[in-house]
């Protein structure tokens, strides 16, 4: 423990939810600081309850701690009360395990999962005693790295992060750590260290790249400052997903966290090709873990955590090729241990349903469906391969099977959306209600509850909608007003969110380096914890845009032209820009694209031999495994 320990103890007596900051959970790995030469602070830019639910953190801290030359400690965003006390008592942001300030670590790594956590990164750096701007950091300061889904467009965060890891982090994180260990042991200068990092496959070091802009604000050029650096950054992949590292132990929080259960990652990627879905595009190709591996992981984790529940995680668990077998096998092995399996709500076949009822393992909570759009035309535009018949059939099954609560997820503001599409949402809801009443009274469960949720569409990079304009806030407000009117249906609840947050998300998701200025300004104006409704200060954000003389509509509400150089074009995320444009044109014609499993659509992943099992020309052995 450190010099700050007494002050920390005193602060902990005053804050709400002190366990957010105390660690000491079962399976928390506490390694000796002196014995491991490289110290990595794994930072999740949101509170403990959110961060501890994140699987990637468990995987990556596990990998780092498994090396005898490195240790990883955890750090989360403190809540407002703790932040104020830390400021008042001059205590820097510290790690959970050894309570050391962030600046004492060699590497400070952030996981970027959603745009609205960006301001927390700045807050954590500043509280941790590290200069916020990367070009203000000196020889004594840690190297600040970042990865995660949002790193696929790293530009808005590029003024603050020394090096980004693009793509799967399992291998590259150790390569980065080795270079940083060299910095320490060989006394490399910061500059030299960053240069070496920039040569790692899948690593982007923004200091060595220059962006120039046209007069209209669009990007004119984006190039490395010297030919020694790669012009394009290729994302990293995990080829042998079945054998890639997965921890056998997770820290088990004492207090409630968002996902307080075992999460098994059964599959990475998705073959469906929904055009709005960034994850579906980014995490290609689809790779499954074998049943044997998953059963072993489940048993290890049940034994090491004592959790009562396992959930299966992936983008589309219903597509896992042997899902019924997996669930049956898990249930068979877990029955005596009284562990329940939460199932993906779709694709419950009838045989499985029977065995579920036998074991009484199924809690008849609510079933969730995501038609995303209200009409077939619009579902074709977004390539959401769900038909009304499909949905109604599943809903009928559910009502007959004793469920009475159904959630339906939609998006508003999708490209080409008209009033007819909004009315379609109400039609669908009405049909779902009707299905319930078709089930004989004595057979159906009481208390029908249909919840319709609409979120505002945010166009994302690396999707066919990356060129699309987001609806303006007034338009979204009008659409939501219309939805509120048409969804006044008995038995139906309607949830919606004010579009302000989605508007900002749209600015950041397709932002360039200048969005970094806005972020810094907003942070200076007091913006942080933006993902929390009661903390989100939209007016301050708008003022920050004004202070920087940057128009948010340029990022959110502007349709891009085909030949525009996009800020994230220098990242090779596997799928090609040509494929995305092709998909965009098909979307304009409301034309669907088949599921990859029915044939290769040539998205670009086929360039990597042996990576995608549905790619044309598969079967060739891969020479390059993507690692160094």
């Amino acid at each position, binding site marked *: 423990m450190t010099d700050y320990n007494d002050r920390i103890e*005193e602060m*902990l*007596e005053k804050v709400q939810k*002190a*366990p957010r900051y*105390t*660690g*000491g*959970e*079962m*399976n*928390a790995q506490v390694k000796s600081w002196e014995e491991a030469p490289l110290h990595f602070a794994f930072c999740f830019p949101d509170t403990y309850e959110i961060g501890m639910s994140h699987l990637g953190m468990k995987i990556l801290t596990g990998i780092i701690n498994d090396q005898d030359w490195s240790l990883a400690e955890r750090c989360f965003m403190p809540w407002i009360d703790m932040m104020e006390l830390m400021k008042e008592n001059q205590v820097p942001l510290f790690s959970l395990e050894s309570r050391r300030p962030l600046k004492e670590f060699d590497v400070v790594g952030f996981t970027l999962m959603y745009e609205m956590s960006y301001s927390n990164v700045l807050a954590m750096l500043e509280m941790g005693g590290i200069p916020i701007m990367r070009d203000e950091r000196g020889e004594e300061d840690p190297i600040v790295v970042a990865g995660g889904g949002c790193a696929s467009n790293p530009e808005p965060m590029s003024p603050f992060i020394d090096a980004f890891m693009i793509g799967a982090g399992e291998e590259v994180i150790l390569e980065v750590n080795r270079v940083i260990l060299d910095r320490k042991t060989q006394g490399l200068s910061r500059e030299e260290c960053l240069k070496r990092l920039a040569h790692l496959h899948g690593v982007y070091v923004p200091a060595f790249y220059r962006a120039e802009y046209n007069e209209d604000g669009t990007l004119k050029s984006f190039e490395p400052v010297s030919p020694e650096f790669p012009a394009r950054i290729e994302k990293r992949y995990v080829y042998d997903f079945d054998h890639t590292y997965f921890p056998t132990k997770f820290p*088990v929080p*004492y*207090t409630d966290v968002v996902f307080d259960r075992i999460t098994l990652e059964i599959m990475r990627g998705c073959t469906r090709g929904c055009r709005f879905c960034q994850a579906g595009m980014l995490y290609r190709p689809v790779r499954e873990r074998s049943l044997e591996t998953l059963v072993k992981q489940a048993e290890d984790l049940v*034994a*090491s*955590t*004592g*959790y*009562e529940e396992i959930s299966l995680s992936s983008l589309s668990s219903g597509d896992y090729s042997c899902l019924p077998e997996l669930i049956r096998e898990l249930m068979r092995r877990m029955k005596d*241990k*009284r562990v329940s399996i939460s199932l993906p709500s779709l694709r419950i076949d009838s045989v499985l349903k029977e065995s579920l009822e036998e074991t*009484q393992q199924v809690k008849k909570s609510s079933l969730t469906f995501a038609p995303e759009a209200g009409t077939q035309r619009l579902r074709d535009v977004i390539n959401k391969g769900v038909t009304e018949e499909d949905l109604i059939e599943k809903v009928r099954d559910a009502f007959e099977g004793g469920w009475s609560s159904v959630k339906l997820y939609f998006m508003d503001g999708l490209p080409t959306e008209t009033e007819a599409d909004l009315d379609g949402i109400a039609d669908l809801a009405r049909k779902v209600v009707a299905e319930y009443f078709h089930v004989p009274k004595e057979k159906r469960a009481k208390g029908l509850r249909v919840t319709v949720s609409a979120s505002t569409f945010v166009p994302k990079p690396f999707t066919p909608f990356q060129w699309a304009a987001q609806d303006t806030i007034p338009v979204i407000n009008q659409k939501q007003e219309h939805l509120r009117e048409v969804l006044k249906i008995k038995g139906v609840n309607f949830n919606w969110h004010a579009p302000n947050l989605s508007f900002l998300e749209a600015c950041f998701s397709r932002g360039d380096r200048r969005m970094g200025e806005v972020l810094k300004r907003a942070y200076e104006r007091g913006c942080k914890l933006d993902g929390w409704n009661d903390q989100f200060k939209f007016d301050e954000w708008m003022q920050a845009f004004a202070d920087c003389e940057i128009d948010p509509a340029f990022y959110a509400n502007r349709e891009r032209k085909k030949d525009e150089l996009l800020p994230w074009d220098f990242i090779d995320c596997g799928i090609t820009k040509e494929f995305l444009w092709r998909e965009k044109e098909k979307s304009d014609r409301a034309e669907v694209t088949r599921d990859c499993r029915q044939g290769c659509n040539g998205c670009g992943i086929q360039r990597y031999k042996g990576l995608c099992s549905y790619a044309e020309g598969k079967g060739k052995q891969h020479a390059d495994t993507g690692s160094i």
Partner: protein
Amino acid sequence: MRIQAVFEKNERVRHIGHLDIQRAVQRGLRRSGLPVGYSNGFNPHILVSFASALSTGACGQREIMDVTMAEEVSTEEFLLKMNQAMPPEMQLLEARQVDDRHPALTALLKAASYDLLIRDPELSRRLVPAIGPMMEQQTIMTLRKSKSGLKECDIKPMIYALQGKDQHLYATMALTERETCKPGMLLDALKKTAGIPEEENVRMLVVRTRLLGEDGEGRLVPLEKL
């Protein structure tokens, strides 16, 4: 068969509330692989109970859990497996087998001993000398927080022993369902005697050192010996 085990809740996890401690023990029992008993019913839970809830912020040196086993298990095996399954912050110290008819812990509990550390040495120098004068009072009136608000009560009959040394107060006080003197109530009374204003915050680390019951002759003895 039941097993009663003495366990520690150390300083690092002292801010964990009782419900979360209960859950941590239940998960520890699940990890241990020991043959624990489950309740019947739709949502079976492990049959484990605790002598007394320990307040958030307090440490416990000898807290007691009572676990119903589905099969006979030796105390050695219980301790070994549970200590592998529990975090270093909540280790078990000893265990014994008890008969199914043994009274519930809560029914036997009469009192608890505490080691109360006054963080500020200056304040402890004023509080410790106030013990004598306070105990000489006919009554020691203090406010007790209850569901219906603050109530004045006399804690003198609830204080069985009280001594002070350096920064520590050592107290043994009533802890039953009917009457309980909490460390905070004792501190409030002592502050009053010492002339420390009510609103002045006195930082105190509460360590509950023992849980006590009554033997046949009315003497207080460790609960785990009854």
